[in-house]
């Protein structure tokens, strides 16, 4: 059985003082190392803040994109994809083909790929997200 654990907090890393953010990352490094060793690890990523989110809907074959996360609606999180796209336009194009986009919506959020995050999560190279790096 695989489980997705969604990380929610009032303050995201980008809003923390530098020292707190460093300390927080260090805790993630420790935790991630631990679950890699114990065999619980499948994959993980840090997301950029909701301000960088774009939410799309497809209605009558028309794609509409809006700024911001989906959170204010009644829609429930039902799954996720991690995709590779060269920019937001390509990401919107791919996400608009996710079947649920026709009935619900798909929030597109960039994944943090800065070196500090990658290092804390134990990705040696630059591949992220699928745990195979």
């Amino acid at each position: 059985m695989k489980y997705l654990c969604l990380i929610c907090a009032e303050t995201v890393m980008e809003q923390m003082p530098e020292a707190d953010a460093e300390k927080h990352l260090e805790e993630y490094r420790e935790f991630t190392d631990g679950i890699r060793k114990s065999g619980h690890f499948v994959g993980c990523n840090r997301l950029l803040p909701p301000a960088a989110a774009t939410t799309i809907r497809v209605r009558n074959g028309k794609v509409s994109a809006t700024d911001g996360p989906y959170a204010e609606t009644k829609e429930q999180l039902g799954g996720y994809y991690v995709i590779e796209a060269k920019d937001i336009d390509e990401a919107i194009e791919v996400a608009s083909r996710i079947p649920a986009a026709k009935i619900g919506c798909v929030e597109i959020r960039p994944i943090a790929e800065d070196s500090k995050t990658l290092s804390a999560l134990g990705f040696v190279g630059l591949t992220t997200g699928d745990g195979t790096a």
Partner: protein
Amino acid sequence: MSSSNENAAERVRVTVDAIYRSDSRRVFATLVRLLGDFDLAEEALHDAFRAALEQWPQEGMPANPRAWLVSTGRFKAIDNLRRRARFVDLPPDAAERLGTDDSEGRDPADIGNGGASLMALAERVADGLGDPAAWDDESVEDDRLRLIFTCCHPALSPDAQVALTLREVCGLTTEEIARAFLTAPSTLAQRIVRAKAKIRDARIPYQVPTREDLPERLDAVLRVVYLVFNEGYSASLGGSLTRHDLSEEAIRLGRLLIELLPEPEAQGLLALMLLHESRRAARTSPGGELILLDEQDRALWNRDQIAQGLALVERALSSRRFGPYTLQAAIAAVHAEAPSAGETDWAQIVGLYNVLLRIEPSPVVELNRAVAVAMYDGPEAGLTLVDGILARGDLEDYHLAHAARADLCRRLERTAEARAAYERALSLTRQEPERRFLERRLNELLD
């Protein structure tokens, strides 16, 4: 320094100022493409103009100042990035990343995350130096279009699109934009900072959309262009009613859009702007007083702009795929074709407003329709409609709603009501010429 040197320096300063006004946003648009980041480009732009002030008095004006500014801006940005890279601690894997992966270096979002990526970015920018597309005129125009589409990207909030376009494409100050939208300058500044962060973080591309996406993306652009035009047409700031450069800028953007995509609504919007612009000379007296449409000297209307506007409206209407801009242009066209105010075809104008109201219902359109009805059926009929709109509270704070009510009451000789409505309009207007106009009307009633 001799006085002739001082004179030369002064002449250069005047020239640089003029180039800054006419070309700085074009230079900026190209720098964004070359540097891949709005803030870097803004910094490079200012460095380039500073260098021009220092070097041109000694070395003389370059043959192509715009190309010189782009090239200098790019070199300054490379220098800055290299210098900054030396002051940032390299992360442990920096060498490896630089050596093995080239995509990371492309990511402007990584700026500030380490000296390595700054250095990589500097090298990437330097690599493109021989690129002839950097400064030929056609690419530079394309860059402006790229900048417009990026600023009007649907992944940005509508407010942010407008603010960013006015700031980045038109070069308005944050203060001017804040005034135009009745927002605090700090709120607006933050809106722009957030929008730029989103462009960077979500990688909103710097490109003209594909043909498939273009019609939808164009709607957002047209909305923003029209707001820019209106900002120029009735400037919210200062004592002058109009700001020529902004309207011209919006019209120029409109023409560029039509070249790219001859969509009916883009034609309709350009027609609308040209037909409004054609009345500019007649719209204010030599003393700067506002003159309403029915009192304007129609001999002062710009016939050339009217002819262009009429041709565009006709083309847009014949497509049968037109929208609200084309309909508003058609209304302006009816005015433009009337030899005098008395000979205006009000029946046609009311008819066009009816269609407009159906496809885009809004209290402001309703108000305009009410004024047209007053011209066609008499002030009594118009006043009933205006009072209906005001009673709903939709336009309670809109000075033109009260000005319209005042005018209709005046024509019905309901002087006390007219006076109260003029006073209410006066308390709401922010434009000096409009204020003087309303005061004049108010004083006439007191005499």
